[in-house]
């Protein structure tokens, strides 16, 4: 069998495939890119051609503008695309809407580049699919054994308990705009929270995009100061950066929470002054 380095090797611009002449999630503008998902540390603007799932292409267009790349090439989940004899298949990674593992096959060798992935259920995207392979190249974001995350449903239940316990206060949840925010909303809906959820303006476009791709989020309303008094007893979702800024002053004695895997480590919520995780 051929050596795996012949198929995929690290370069300063990112993981490169010489026989197919493409990069996977390159950090610099390149001619041909395969993008696993829409987060900014993986998806950048300015490549010549981008192969990604239709959802990821839509997210990139929303974030960077319609001209984010020269040519868009949509690869639906499970559909092989051949480039110079190298076969690339995008397979669900279970991370965010459109997220995929890149399965690269060439001369009998199968390499899987995981991209960011999770193996737990997520109501906003199809679940991670294991693919038999010779080489698995994995992200290790929460690789240290200090990260053993509790079930998401359990954390949502904690949030709802707190809302019931402190009805005079606003519950302010910090969540990243792509993926985490919609996952929190969808989990709240599953847990029976059917009141309007108030969202920071920075989340609105991506929420609409999720809904357009068939992820139902229920009634949402902008968390602007004119919409509804001081938001006592409501749940408000905002990007983490907004929680500590002037934007958050409009809320009634807020209880602040972060929907982030990093919060597992106690020193972090303490630093961020969040009162529950």
């Amino acid at each position, binding site marked *: 069998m051929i050596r795996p380095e012949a198929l995929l090797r690290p370069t300063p611009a990112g993981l490169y495939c010489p026989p197919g002449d493409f990069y996977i999630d390159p950090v610099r503008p390149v001619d041909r890119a395969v993008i696993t998902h829409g987060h900014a540390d993986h998806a950048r603007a300015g490549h010549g051609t981008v192969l990604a799932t239709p959802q990821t292409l839509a997210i990139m267009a929303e974030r960077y503008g319609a001209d984010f790349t020269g040519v868009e090439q949509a690869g639906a989940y499970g559909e092989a695309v051949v480039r110079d004899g190298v076969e690339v298949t995008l397979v669900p990674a279970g991370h965010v809407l459109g997220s995929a593992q890149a399965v690269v096959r060439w001369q009998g060798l199968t390499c899987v580049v995981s991209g960011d992935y999770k193996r737990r259920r997520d109501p906003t995207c199809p679940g991670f699919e294991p693919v038999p392979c010779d080489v698995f190249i994995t992200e290790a974001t929460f690789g*240290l*054994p*200090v*990260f*053993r995350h509790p079930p998401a449903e359990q954390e949502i239940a904690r949030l709802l308990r707190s809302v019931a316990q402190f009805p005079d206060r606003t519950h302010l949840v910090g969540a990243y705009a792509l993926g985490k925010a919609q996952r929190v909303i969808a989990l709240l809906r599953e847990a029976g929270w059917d009141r309007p959820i108030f969202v920071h303006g920075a989340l609105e476009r991506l929420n609409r995009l999720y809904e357009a791709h068939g992820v139902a989020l229920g009634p949402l309303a902008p968390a602007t100061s004119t919409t509804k008094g001081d938001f006592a007893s409501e749940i408000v979702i905002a990007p983490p950066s907004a929680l*500590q*800024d*002037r934007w*958050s*002053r409009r809320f009634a004695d807020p209880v602040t929470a972060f929907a982030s895997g990093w919060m*597992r*480590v*106690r*020193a972090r*919520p*303490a630093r961020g*002054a*969040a*009162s*529950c*995780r």
Partner: protein
Amino acid sequence: MRAFADLLDRLSLTASRNTKLALMVGYLAETPDPDRGWALAALTGELSFDAAKPAFIRKAAEARMDPQLFRWSYDYVGDLAETVALVWEAKPGANREPQLSEVIDALTSASRSEVQRLIETWLDALDPTARWALLKLMTGGLRVGVSARLAKQALAQLGGVEVAEIEEVWHGLSAPYGDLFAWLEGRSDRPSAVSPGRFRPVMLAQAIDEAVDFPRLDPAAYVAEWKWDGIRIQAVNEGGVRRLYSRTGDDISKTFPDMVEALDFEGVIDGELLVVRDGALASFGDLQQRLNRKTVDAKLIQTYPAAIRAYDLLAEGAEDLRHLPFLERRERLEALVARLGSGRIDLSPLQPFETWEGLADLRSDPPEGDAQLAEGVMLKRADSIYEAGRPKGPWFKWKRDPHLIDAVLMYAQRGHGKRSSFYSDYTFGVWTTDALGQRSLTPVGKAYFGFTDEELKQIDKFVRDNTVERFGPVRSVRAEPHFGLVLEVAFEGLQRSTRHKSGVAMRFPRVHRLRWDKSPGEADELTTLQRMLD
């Protein structure tokens, strides 16, 4: 263990004092004896165990997983107890969760090897939060932002009594405090406060309101003395037990062994702890060199010799004097100090005065000597009994007016908690002139209170509108001779400092007024501060 772990977890995640109080009161009300008593002992720092050293815990964790992964995890988390709590693989169903009291019993009575075996089985049975709580409990130092004082306040709330009553009995009690809870819940009488060497809750003074209080107070009914600038202490020698307490009841005997040795009397003295060198009072900065130290060496004791200036006598021999009028206690105190003839314990002299105006003159222009270092004057009703807490009327403090300077706002940092969306911590500077005649600002201090909520909003807006550079949570703001914000800063005193670039350190600086009307060029020079040092 579960309830205790939840308590620690929630305490560690809130910075609000009132929330912490509510959490503790709730826990103490709902948790049965003896667990709540052990939890109280852990919170007040009364527990320590030898069997569970950090090195053992680390070894136990490394034996169960890849040591390199453990080291990476430890590097990432930075706290041993938390790292082990997070990486330990639970064995569900392997064991039952231990009760807090069971853990304490084992830690205090089992052999070292037995304890080490037990620790592993406990860790197997608990979830990460409970593992963290267990490890914190064993290795000491909970670090959840609860002082012994706050825990006592929770007890007072629980029982609907004054915190002074808790303090009065506290030193006669020991964990798990069954008799204390029985009293607080009305199931028995107050536990006896008679234990030799115990702390008596301190009487404190109200700040005087010159406009309101002086017209209605009769100068003939009051005596005055200097308010010495040290730390208020209580010195006890009872039945051979010698103790030195801070005014909140913390036992600081170990920090001042020289002082404890000098307590050659039978009774309880209320006084000020000071550094006195060759009969002359040294500055508060000298005393600071001796505060908060766990161990002291002979050189430190010799360089910063401690002494007590006595204000009051609370007990003499076995006799409690607190119900006597001040002047009677004072007579007994004077006689005792005279008999003692110690160079380490002297009297805080009373300052005769006829009228409030006369006292005002004395306060603003103290005579040469120690009085120059006093913080102000104390007024005590001649007939006042010694009453714990801060009763309104019998005692007043009348501090000297603070020093004021005009300084320029240079840097602002985001606050915490409720103020986290505001730039609320301010570094301010004054002008220096170099050899070429160039003026520049040098930081001289930091202030984060003294302003109203409305003023905070105004400063916050100024900071945001005039940011020059950002360094994480800190912004530097425009501070030029013709543009910037002048802060009138009040402070209590000034010391030389080698740690500050300016060479001076302020005591208790706070924003006194915002001088929107002044341009920064008119702010003070460093030389003004340097002159205050001499």
